[in-house]
């Protein structure tokens, strides 16, 4: 059983609960990307250096995470079927790994968060399938779904063919058509799926998104909301640093959904997080996924806030309110002051802090939406971009146009 109930709105921003069987997730939510298989066996939580540390945080593995339980940082995680081959897996090992669903492995049996299994369309499209150590598998919609089913996630998504800003028109249309066909094939197997089904759409502006929706609707035998429980907007990663594009894409996607009567479906923005997140929440996005918390940590970067990071050596832990930074165990780790520390342990704590910073901002935002005070939401947005010169114009534009205009018609005292 899947449902999405919006229980608070402020402007276009909204708070909801995504209920999937007996699991629920509060939105807006950021799904941290977790690499469930990263080499190794179950004893090492299927390995992966810092990826392993993250999984240890996720399932609360005290030797690594200390005395406190940080699994609440992971109420919902994202994984991708294409990442299964990131660590040179053999065909035999892949078959062995897939014979159990993620939660059927004892290590993850207690994990009660929501697992979102992405189809990994971009990687599959560029590589032509999954390439392991001794095999290459062409992946089509059916095979992608087979692997997703084997992992046993809570959220499934069709295999997509992401577009690229430099695509020629004909290439883009071809990709959109293939995505639409995959959506149909995916929908035809809806009965096999015990979870939420998300539909991928692609486009950077309204005309493109309109085409993407049109092609899918033409392909499907039933209306989208009959088959799908959510919409996932993709292809934005190549433009992740162009806030203008992100704003237009999310905004136009929401408009398309409203015009087509899909406004009750949750909107997930694939591959985007970080500084654009509050802005996209204000536009009505419900969830995100990103590995940026991890990638920044791997590069030794410690988030000060959503916009700024510093080398972890220069981080002022006292200035951070997150639980990781207020835990002496992790402060010592991040300062490399414990014996026999692996890099994964040092940076794992940094990654957990980075994620905590992102989650904290979303939590604050959720509370403002719950309070229903659009002015407070605008103030929060304005404050968060106060010193971000290149970024704030987008927030100010949003506030000016859609929330509380700074220069109201009536707000004049001219003689």
């Amino acid at each position, binding site marked *: 059983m899947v449902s999405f109930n919006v229980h608070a709105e402020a402007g276009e921003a909204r708070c909801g609960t995504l209920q999937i069987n007996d699991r629920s997730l509060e939105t807006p939510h950021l799904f941290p990307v977790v690499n469930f298989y990263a080499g190794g066996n179950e004893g090492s939580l299927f390995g992966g250096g810092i990826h392993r540390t993250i999984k240890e945080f996720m399932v609360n593995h005290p030797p690594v995470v200390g005395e406190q339980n940080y699994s609440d940082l992971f109420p919902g995680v994202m994984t991708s079927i294409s990442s299964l081959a990131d660590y040179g897996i053999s065909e035999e090992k892949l078959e062995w790994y897939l014979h159990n669903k993620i939660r059927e492995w004892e290590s993850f049996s207690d994990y009660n968060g929501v697992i979102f299994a992405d189809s990994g369309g971009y990687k599959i499209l560029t590589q032509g399938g999954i390439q392991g150590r001794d095999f290459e598998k062409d992946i089509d919609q059916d095979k992608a779904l087979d692997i997703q089913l084997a992992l046993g996630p809570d959220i499934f998504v069709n295999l997509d063919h992401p577009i690229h800003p430099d695509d020629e028109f004909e290439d883009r249309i071809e990709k959109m058509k293939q995505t639409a066909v995959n959506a149909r094939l995916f929908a035809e197997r809806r009965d096999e799926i015990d979870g939420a089904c998300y539909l991928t759409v692609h486009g950077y502006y309204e005309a493109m998104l309109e085409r993407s929706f049109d092609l899918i609707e033409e392909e499907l035998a039933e209306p989208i909301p009959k088959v799908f429980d959510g919409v996932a907007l993709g292809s934005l990663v190549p433009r992740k640093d162009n806030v203008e594009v992100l704003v237009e894409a999310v905004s136009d996607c929401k408009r398309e959904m409203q015009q087509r009567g899909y406004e009750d479906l949750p909107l997930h923005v694939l591959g985007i997080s970080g500084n654009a997140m509050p802005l996209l929440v204000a536009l009505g996005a419900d969830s995100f996924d990103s590995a940026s918390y991890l990638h920044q940590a791997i590069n030794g970067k410690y988030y000060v806030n959503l916009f700024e990071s510093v080398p972890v050596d220069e981080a002022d832990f006292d200035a951070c309110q997150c639980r990781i930074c207020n835990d002496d165990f992790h402060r010592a780790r991040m300062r490399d002051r414990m014996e026999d520390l692996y890099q994964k342990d040092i940076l794992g704590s940094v990654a957990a802090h980075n994620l905590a910073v992102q989650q904290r901002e979303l939590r604050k935002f959720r509370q403002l939406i719950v309070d229903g005070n659009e002015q407070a939401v605008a103030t929060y947005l304005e404050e968060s971009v*106060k*010193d971000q010169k290149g970024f704030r*114009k987008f927030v*100010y534009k949003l506030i*000016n146009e859609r929330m509380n*205009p*700074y*220069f109201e018609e009536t707000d004049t005292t*001219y*003689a």
Partner: protein
Amino acid sequence: MHKTPQVNEVNEFIEIASDFEDPLEVIREALSNSYDANATRVDIEITQDDEGRNTLTIDDDGDGMCERDLSSFFDLGNSRKHDAIGYKGHGTKIYYKSDEIRVEAVKDGTRIESLMERPWETLNDRELPMYSVEKTETDESSGTRIEVHGFRAGRGFDPQKLTYNKIEHYIKWKTIGGSTAWYFDDDFHEMEITIELSDTIDDTRPPIKTTNRLKFGPENRDPEGEFVAERMCKCYPPRELSVTLDDGQEALIEVVGMVGGKEARNELPTYGKHSAQFGVWLAKDHIKVERYNDAIGADNEFFHFFFVANCQDIELSANREKIRNKSGNVYQAITDELDRFFTKVCQDPWYQDYIERRKLENKMQSVQSQASSLDDRRERAEEQGGLSPSNSAEVVAMLERYSANGAPESFKIADFQLNDEVNTILETENGFDNASIEVKLSDFFKDEPPLTHIDRFVCWKLGDIDALSQLERTPYMDETIRFDFSDNEIKYGEDDPRTIPILELSSKISP
């Protein structure tokens, strides 16, 4: 042993008086002093006699002066003001650049008269000038009259330099006469200002009568008509921006202004180029000092904006023309806040509409000029029978026409790169040729480019045959070159000469 540093008083007077470069600054000083003396009226008269000597008279109904005030007027660095402009006691010293200063003031039933003779001459004789003080009882109402005779205004008060228009602009842009304090309920009182120039300076209009209120607008947010952007105008309401400084203190910035097209801006007392007058003005005591147009950002053109951002925490240079604490944190905090404020203005939907409207109208105008240019071209084409290529692309079209109309040899354009020297690959009956297609053959040779990879030339006409013949007289890339205009070919090289055919289209295509 301890010594006390000495001050050369005469030099200081000369230095301070000379520091004021623009003679109009006397008006700024006069208006500020009258305003500070609570005047509700100030009349300023500037006259020039036949010998070019200026007399400046300032007459107000303010609080007048007592003897102590008179001392402050003449003394250096002895102002009775504290925070406001003038607290340094420098301003009135500009009057010292004159032949005579006469002051008459009434305060609290006492009339005081003072005269300083030859102040500038005396200072330049390395002496401090003296002033007389005479006091009498009176029942006149309070006020001050200052006459400065023989004021050394350079050529600043000459009829060629000084006009009512210039003064009016100066008053509104550079003095308390352009105050925005009234928008903010500050301690503001209205003052009527009259400025009169003698007819020898400007007799084109009656005296200026204004007040010390700077008014923006009038607003015209959505005018009707086809080309209206230049008339569009929006006034932005007064805003108080609060900034926390490093020491925890709060700085207040009072911002008010307008955005508008050229016609709307011309409603204000402008003078000269708008780019020198408009933008974001930083002000102290509501007197504009310097512009900070960076606040508007590189994406926007600053001259559409006219804003005044007043802050008492900026510090001014001695002549009040510049902000002196620009490298400090206070200035940084102020400008940071203004950056944020103007980002909001630039994201205001009205402003965005205004910019879009301007772009649209520019395009509409370019459509109009395009139409007239097309008419001209069409007319020319008709006159010339459609046969007058002016660029190599048009020659390509002619070549196609030539080939399509039963030419003895047929060419097809296989590839064309407009800016390359060898700009064309031609498909001929014998394969592919590298070719240079030119309007005039002589144009190709202007920079003497290499001929190594050229198999043939195609041109509309040969062009300057003398210039081509001249090339034969000196080596061309160390080789000989010969133009055969009867057979239309070029012979290039000596030991192993190459023949490069020339196809001159104008002689092959008849109108």
